[in-house]
């Protein structure tokens, strides 16, 4: 069965037709070429496919594209403002938190939403928040450091407009 689908992705409205069984992840990657969300386990364990749906982090591999009618989806591609990376992205680069990089787009998505709700987290809270993510490089220490650094950067208001 095919469904008309109206969905906004990274601020851009799309009107498409999708198959019932198409996952949101496959729709983003294979039909729209938005490849920031990665297909790791395809089972909700690794978190590489994390996107924001109406601002909330969700595993796009376990969601049907057809369920997204009228929703706002944000992927890693939607975080930067022009050339200005999001503070979480900046912190990941600064802290050397990216090794192979496969898990990073998903973790940054989760970290962004988490830090907006918890501007002053403890490392234990950060570890809990990203527990739905796996990093095969096992670079967790730098990832947690980067999220803590991003929290600080987001607490300090920018010096220029």
């Amino acid at each position, binding site marked *: *069965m095919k*469904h008309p689908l109206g969905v906004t992705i990274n601020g851009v409205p799309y009107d498409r037709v999708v198959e*019932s*069984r198409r*996952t949101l992840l496959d729709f983003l990657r294979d039909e729209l070429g938005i490849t920031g969300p990665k297909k790791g386990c*395809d*089972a*909700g364990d690794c*978190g590489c496919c*994390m996107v924001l749906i109406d601002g*909330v*982090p*969700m*595993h796009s591999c*376990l*969601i*049907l594209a*057809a*369920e997204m*009618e009228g929703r706002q989806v944000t992927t890693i591609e939607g975080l930067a403002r022009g050339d200005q990376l999001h503070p979480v992205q900046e912190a990941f680069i600064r802290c050397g938190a990216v090794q192979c990089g496969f898990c990073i787009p998903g973790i940054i998505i*989760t970290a962004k939403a988490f830090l907006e709700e918890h501007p002053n987290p403890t490392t234990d809270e950060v570890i*809990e*928040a990203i*527990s*739905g*993510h796996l990093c095969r490089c096992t670079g967790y220490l730098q990832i947690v450091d980067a999220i803590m650094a991003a929290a600080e950067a987001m607490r300090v208001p920018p010096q220029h407009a």
Partner: protein
Amino acid sequence: MYGFDYHAPQSLSEATALLAQHGAAAKPLAGGTDLILHLKERRLKPRHLVDLKRIPGLDHLTAEGSELRVGAVVPLRALERAIAGDELLQATVGAGLRQMKSPTLRNRATLGGVLANADVTADLLPPLLALGTTVALHGPGGDRVLPLDEFLLGASRTALGAGEILREVTIPRVAGGRGFFQRLGLKRVGGPPLVIVAGVLVPGPEGGVARASLVAGAVGPRPARLPQVEQILLAARPAVSGIEQAAAAGAGEAGAVSDLWATKEYRQEILEVLLRRGLQAALGTGGDR
């Protein structure tokens, strides 16, 4: 993924009509974190998915008065937030919730989905059963309310009839109650639970308890009340003097079984320890950790 037709009904009657029409070939879809995975792994092959999330009146969460009413498609994360300020619900439901899946999956997974899937080892079930949770069902024949205990028939089996939908979950707030949740899993976080025990106790006169409700999960074929434990605690004055005897009785009456993860004897021994710890915590004696 297995081929199916996705439906997004706009009303309860439309949804029940679709489910009744397609019978066993249709499955209701809430968060989908279990169902869509089952479809990918071809453990389930429904021809029709009926999405409940567009139906008005299934996403409410009201925490007023003596009970918490939770619509079937409310995400687990929203429930976690709603009980943040309630000590008893935190100690029971909150502790069980934090063991369910991962925080990001809890943004999507729903309370109705967890119950309708009848995963009998789910960490959330013993706390909900100990509190006396009920479920409201809506079907072609009208509405009915069942205790959660009667709704859960066994592994992946519920009392849902043809065309029936789990509409709302009601969690009582037990006035003056003290609760606990204890579990041992294969891993510190996640992984299958080997033993879960949850309890709700209401203090009574002479240091006793006026009400005791204890439920063990993941030890037998389904979560089970522990009536002998409850009787021992209700009779003990003060209640703390009955803890040792109650914990020993619980190990025997929980119907523990052996499986891939643990033997019956191991489960019984762990259950005794977890019961003792939980009762000590709830009755305020501190004690061994």
